[in-house]
């Protein structure tokens, strides 16, 4: 106990240095936690609901630009294990500000409301299903644009040569909050008027299977069924569909990990510098401690303990601060809906804490060993 108090007293002797080092460790750990969260969020886990395991997305095996004939819907609905099918069509759009993209997804209105984790107020769902030009808008998007239920809005098309004009009939909460939904029938009608060639086709279909266990088999059945049709398909789980977009970014994980490694290295440098400054200043005391019977192992513990204390303080501020920061400030607004979720998970916090511990030990090693090795006589003679 007395030993611990000695360590803390030592740490507080040069308060300014301890504070600066702690803050330096804290900002670095904040960054580390943020980077790791970026990587975990790119895997899309937090965008999944319990029902995601039962959802499949079927699209052209060749390209998202090659739409599937609407006739596929009937065939998909008859595949054993499939409970419900919906069209799934992106309509890239914008609202008032061309540079801020807004995605609309055209779907089967009966598919909406099937996932309890995407909760829609019970009175609003029938209203959406009753209005052919109705829209369901994510709660967060509604707030971001200052809309209200019942409002008529025009969303300008940035790919299709038409605008989607509709009335907001419902809102939903849930993990994914980046797309509004409209009726596929309404979209199809707009397409028929503007590009008759493209009518009666959907970019993809979503299937809800009966059980999550069935899902992979259903995917295989579907793709086998269409191998020799005009548009061969590729069916994958909702999770893999999301992962596919992360993969398109290229080797981002490697790149971010490299940055994280650099951050770790920087922390080690800073703490090593602090600890070696502390050791240099206390050469005499260390010699005195040894004289009165402290063993080299004690000296090492004393230095390592101080490094640990500083890192622990930095870790609490940096890691805890990151958790608090991303809970307080919504990254959804900060990144214009690009990053929807930014949850600092417990495992990320544990990993960062473990790293902080490891770095504290590594950075105290060289100064501590140097301190343990110096001979009493030569140190005291130096004065």
């Amino acid at each position, binding site marked *: 106990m007395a030993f611990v108090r000695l360590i803390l007293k030592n740490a507080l002797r040069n308060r*300014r*240095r301890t504070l*600066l*080092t702690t*803050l*330096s*460790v804290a*900002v*670095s750990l*904040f*960054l580390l936690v943020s*980077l790791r969260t970026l990587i975990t969020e790119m895997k899309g886990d937090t965008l999944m609901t319990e029902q995601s395991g039962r959802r499949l997305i079927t699209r*052209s*095996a*060749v*390209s*998202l*630009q*090659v739409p599937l004939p609407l006739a596929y819907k009937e065939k998909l609905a008859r595949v054993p294990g499939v409970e419900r099918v919906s069209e799934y069509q992106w309509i*890239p759009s914008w609202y008032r500000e*061309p*540079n801020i993209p807004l995605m609309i997804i055209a779907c089967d209105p009966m598919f909406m409301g099937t996932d309890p984790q995407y909760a829609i107020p019970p009175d609003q769902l029938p209203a959406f299903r009753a209005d052919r030009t109705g829209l369901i808008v994510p709660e967060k998007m509604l707030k971001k644009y200052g809309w209200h239920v019942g409002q008529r809005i025009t969303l*300008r*098309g*940035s*790919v*299709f*040569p038409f605008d989607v004009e509709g009335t907001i009939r419902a809102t939903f909460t849930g993990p994914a909050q980046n797309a509004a939904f409209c009726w596929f029938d309404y979209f199809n009608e707009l397409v028929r008027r503007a*590009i008759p*060639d*493209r009518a009666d086709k959907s970019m993809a279909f979503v299937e809800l299977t009966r059980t999550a266990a069935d899902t992979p088999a259903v995917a295989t059945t579907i793709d086998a069924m269409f191998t*020799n049709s*005009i*548009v*061969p398909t*590729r069916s994958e789980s909702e999770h893999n569909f999301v992962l*596919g977009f992360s*993969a*398109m*970014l*290229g*080797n*981002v994980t490697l790149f971010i990990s*490299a*940055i994280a490694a*650099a*951050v770790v*290295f*920087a*922390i080690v*440098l*800073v703490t*090593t*510098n*602090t600890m*070696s*400054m502390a050791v240099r200043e206390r050469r005499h005391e260390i010699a005195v401690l040894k004289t009165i019977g402290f063993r080299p192992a004690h000296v090492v513990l004393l230095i390592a303990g101080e490094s640990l204390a500083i890192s622990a303080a930095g870790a609490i501020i940096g890691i805890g601060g990151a958790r608090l920061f991303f809970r307080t400030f919504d990254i959804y607004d900060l990144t214009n809906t*690009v990053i929807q979720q930014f949850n600092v998970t417990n495992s990320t916090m544990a990993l960062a804490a473990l790293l902080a511990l490891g770095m504290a030990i590594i950075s105290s090693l060289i100064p501590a060993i140097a301190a343990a090795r110096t001979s009493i006589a030569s140190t005291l003679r130096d004065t």
Partner: protein
Amino acid sequence: MLIPLKYNIRNLFVRRTATLLTAFGIAVSVAVFVAVMALVEGMDETFVATGDARNVIALRRGAVSETGSIIDIEAPLIVRNVPGVAALSAERLVYVNTPRITDRGSSNVVIRGLGDTGRALRPQVHLVRGRWYRPGARELVVSRSIASRFRDCNLGDEFPTGSTRWKVVGLFDAGNTAYSSEMWTDAEGPAMAFQRRAWSDIVVQTSDPATMIKRLESEPRINVDARTEVDYFAEQTRASTPVRILGNVVAIIMAVGSAFAAMNTMYAAVGSRTREIAVLRALGFSGRAVALSFLSEAVLLSVVGGVIGGLAALPLNGLATGTTNWFTFAEMNFAFAITPRLLARGIGFAVAMGVVGGVLPAMRASRLSAASAMRAL
């Protein structure tokens, strides 16, 4: 009178452990900054190098990219009769989900179906192996860098897109331009293979782009936005914005950490040299000269760090990589570009860390009066 810089250099050398540890800390921040910004520079350079000022590109009104534009099948006939059109290429672009060779995962690669004069409008593109495609034959000529990074698209390969199989008959080199992320064929190719009749864009060569843009946009029978190719690709540089933001946020946070560390080192320097400061003051150097001396020492330290950091990042220069351009929703190849300007920015960034870290310790040094500093010993 100023204290000679040699004094600071020698001091840094005497305390070389602390100097190196601090300089390396700054170097790491600078290296990360330079590396991330080299990605941004590389992407931007690619876009800037692509456009030709004589070419005007017409997209559907409101469309942001060639792949996200749908133009009526009759539009080229109308555009052909617009006065001032020297050459015209109506094109169809389709991106195809293609597996990478190096790792698992896939990306969208653009197949550009060009009109008859399409190739003449892009003199940057040179055939390097094989031959050009024959119209209507489902043949592809692939950029060298795509061929080396994606499956089934090297010379002699059969590139499958659903039921269609394309023969790769040639490889082209497009230098450092956006075309080096593409596969080329004639305009009928995508129409047949992907049942896509509508055009993506119309590229027009003209001697008077400004007038051409006005004429195209005011033509009531077509609904297009026109701009020079240069402007079109300049807009695409917005694709690098997320990387730029990431780079800046990471660099600023790391810089704060490094500045704290530099502050520590400089405070220690002031602390251990109280006696020297007193002597300097006694010799007649002003408080301001002492402060300036310590500040220059901090800056010197950070410049050393900046140079080390820049050098550490330098091997990345020219390294080829690729990512998805979210405007076209397709793969874009580019190389890390570490320009002299970027290196200078990196060192400037280091100097900023040195100044932030050095200013408070320097002020403290200047406040030590000769008498009290001597007495303290």
